[in-house]
């Protein structure tokens, strides 16, 4: 896929807010898979440039505001 975005933006999830609604998985299967309980497993390396806008769409669609796109690393998995 394309090169990582220059700002180092990453898709990240606040697991406390996440209710396993899985709309992020539907909108961004490139970066999100689901565990056996239906919670998202998110690829947190910097997003490829081509996916940043898609990722923002997934963020907007998350019903609990659990997702975000930013350069801060909450912590390494």
């Amino acid at each position, binding site marked *: 896929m394309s090169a990582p975005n220059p700002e180092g933006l990453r898709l990240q999830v606040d*697991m*406390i807010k*996440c209710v396993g609604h899985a709309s992020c998985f539907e909108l961004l299967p490139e970066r999100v898979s689901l565990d056996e309980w239906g919670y998202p497993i998110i690829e947190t390396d910097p997003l490829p440039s081509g996916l940043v806008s898609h990722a923002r769409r997934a963020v907007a669609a998350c019903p609990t505001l659990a997702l975000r796109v930013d350069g801060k690393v909450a912590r390494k*998995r």
Partner: protein
Amino acid sequence: MTIMLERGTRQGAPGTLPRLLAGGRRLGEHRATYGQIPLRRFAGEDGRRTLIRAITDAGLRGRGGAGFPTGRKMTSVAAGAKRPVVIANGCESEPASRKDKMLMACAPHLVMDGAVLAAHAVGADRVYLCVERGTSIADRLERELAQRDDPVKWKLVRVPRRYVSSEESALVHLINDGDGRPMAAPPRPYEKGVAGRPTLVDNVETLAHVALIAAYGPGWFREVGTRSDPGSTLVTVGGAVARPNVYEIAPGMRLGEVLDAAGGAVEPIGAVLVGGYFGTWVPMPDGWGLPLTHDRTGPQGTSLGGGGIIALPAESCGLAETARVVRYLAEESAQQCGPCMFGLPAIATDLAAVAYGRCDPATRQRLSRRIAQVTGRGACRHPDAATKLATSALTTFADDLMTHMDGWTCTGVSRDPILPLPDRRHRDRSWK
């Protein structure tokens, strides 16, 4: 190497232990041994910087488990825009450890001196002393606090007796909102903690070392320990040893030496759990010579962590012991994050199946998959403790595992458990 618990005077030869448990419970005794808090020596902005530099040069690392450099944490907190706050963390919710309780009982004023110095170093005027509620420690500390005349405002916080309530974001959450469950990062407490202020959360033993470094200097501090993990450290040695107790040791000591210091094994040892329930199983006798520090060593990255060390008899079943503890950790989840809420009970059930000989290759595979899936996916590190312990058990007890997979269990599963768990009556239900 010296390991002692009994009291001695402060003026020992270089490198003499004990350092922490030497002082006395009462303020008078404590002052007679350690003198006044050297606040005047570190007066003003320059003094503060000098104090943080001394802590940094001493190479002190957090004694709560993570082993993060204390000087670096202080530097970040002091650099914040708002006036910082200090939390002295004496919760020690880890059932395999009681060194913090011992320290707060034997040398409460050393901890308090350290907290006052840490507050001074980062420019804080408030210190929250956090301890588990429902024990006599809180009342005793409150009485000792009343004796003191410090330039900070003290507040004693009684924390719910839950495993994860001692986590730093949980303490901040409790103080801010009366809810002792961990919070998601960012922001981290050092950036934005109590009342939105930069918050220095340090374990009580760490703070006691801060007091000693301020009094005797970084050079003195480094007379014991290793280069990357200097100073003495408290460990709780339990299990099949003659004298289970809290010991003050020098990092770098071999695992076998630490067991010998606790009176030696009382029966053949199969493995030793190092680092409490956030730790790893070290097979014995191969692990005898493993040096114990806050750095990761050995094939599994073993580290002292919070200092819990438990010797498991060869006759006991490490898989069954681990399954019990993982079940306990699952029950102690704050039930906020899906992978922790659903993953830990599932892992505990799989592990129990393995331990009690109801395991087939499919279960074994599912267990590995679940461990990999859950690790790192909680808002706090709680699930990682459980998966690390489970992984370590599957590695260390691989031979037993093969036996169990064939449908056999060892007699060990019916022995009395060695790893301590709190009585259900002593576990809080609520988070308030």
